[in-house]
């Protein structure tokens, strides 16, 4: 290898190591760092709410509705993984991260209920059906809205616009 080639290889290796080191560094759960995942989850829960609302009005199909809910569940899972990767050295940051994760978990649960209800051909079982443990679409809609309000309140508290 020529001297020029060796120098180029060294520079490329150094850049690769630097890129690796930068991506390996975990972020701190500051409001700025949490902004992205929080907004992603907010967007996902709003989309799932719209899908359930449309299904209640019979404006969408079970397949399209459940696909939307399933996709949005995936978005929440990605955001949860991202926030779980944050290291929180201070109590304040740890509390903020944990509150965010609790909110994401509530949304995730609501979305699972939404997906199940949307998959059912007529929008979920009749209320009070013994032993089913499943949720009807109106109940799921309420659950999603409550979870959204909870996330909104948390975002406001954390100063996330």
């Amino acid at each position, binding site marked *: 290898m020529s001297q020029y080639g060796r120098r180029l290889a060294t520079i490329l290796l150094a850049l690769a190591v630097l890129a690796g080191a930068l991506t390996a560094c975990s972020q701190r759960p500051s409001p700025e760092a949490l902004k992205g995942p929080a907004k992603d989850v907010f*967007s996902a829960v709003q*989309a799932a709410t719209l899908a359930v609302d449309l299904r209640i009005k019979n404006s969408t*199909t079970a397949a399209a509705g459940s696909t939307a809910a399933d996709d949005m569940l995936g978005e929440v899972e990605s955001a949860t993984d991202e926030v779980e990767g944050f290291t929180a050295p201070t109590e304040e940051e740890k509390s903020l991260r944990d509150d965010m994760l609790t909110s994401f978990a509530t949304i995730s649960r609501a979305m699972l209920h939404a997906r199940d209800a949307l998959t059912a051909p007529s929008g979920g079982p009749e209320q009070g059906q013994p032993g089913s443990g499943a949720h009807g679409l109106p109940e799921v809609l309420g659950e999603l809205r409550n979870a959204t309000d909870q996330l909104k309140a948390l975002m406001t508290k954390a100063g996330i616009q």
Partner: protein
Amino acid sequence: MKRLLGVALGILTAIGGFVDIGDLVTNAVVGSRFGLSLAWVVVVGVVGICLFANMSGRVAAVSGRATFEVIRERMGPRAGLANLAASFLINLMTVTAEIGGIALALQLASGVAYLLWVPVALLAVWLVIWRVKFKIMENVTGLLGLSLIVFAVALFLLKPDWGVLASQAFAPSVSQEEGPGVYWYFAIALFGAAMTPYEVFFFSSGAVEERWKVKDLMQARMNVLLGFPLGGFLSVAIAACAAVVLLPAGISVTTLSQVALPVAQAGGQLALAVLILGVVAATFGAALETTLSSGYTLAQFFGWSWGKFRRPAQAARFHMSMIVVLLAGAAVLATGVDPILVTEYSVVFSAIALPLTYLPILIVANDPQYMGEHVNNRAVNIAGLVYLVIILAASLAAIPLMIVTGAGA
């Protein structure tokens, strides 16, 4: 009368065939995040694709050879190889995105996971390329793709505040939340989606497949000059639907299922069914075009026998290369990579590779050895040069913006 019908069919096919997964996703993403403030980019992109598609169609009709073949001969193997490498890589990404798009649309229709639809889509695309005549293939997918007009109908049914949409479109501004870097990153993505290189290679090779002559140029020009702008109108309608329903709700598009929500809200299950038909047709048509484009560019560079007008046995390497491309696309999707993410990257990389595609076309369209009296006139050359500057700027800015904005995150 027959000629008039042919013109009408050509225009309708061009409209239906204009929108692909890149246009669908990028316009919906942009609409949900910026409203109509990037609609001007669609206009710039449509004018550009009209200009260069027209040029490459003229090269094919006058010389009787596809643009890529002429570029290889006129500019030599080295420049041809650079063009081939860039176009082929973008084609491969686009084939992957289109097959993923078919699978996602079928998931929307059935609820069955998209990964299970990938082999079905792959087989269907290959069968059509193998068995169906070029003209039938182009017309059927183009006409069914017209179902995407449902976005324009949905927009009217949503009864938007037209004044707000007009002010977004005609007085574009960058929201503080998104920032100028993200705005320009998506501007480049939208430009790349409108000016995808495969479109011109497919257009010129299609001209050879259909044996265009100089007398057919007027019809070709009308197809491009009416069909593509109307296709661009569909792109704006997609963005507008997202701007009216998703933007106010804080929904940022990341999946195809979200793109369908405004249409379902406006027109219910019937509109949704038409939309799914349109998406399947548009992505299927684009998958055929990109797969064929991959085969065309490879075969034209290496001098293999090519074309659907030949029996597969007479163009074996052309057909084999397309099978390999399809399998490679399916293999990428089988890793579980998000097809929407592939789409988003494919349109940006498309913008990066644009100068390598469009500069040679401009050079060849000015060579009297191939074009005789049909070389570009002065106005077309000025417009072509202006576009080359825009293309170069977009190409140079794409990667830095991608890094700075985290790919528009």
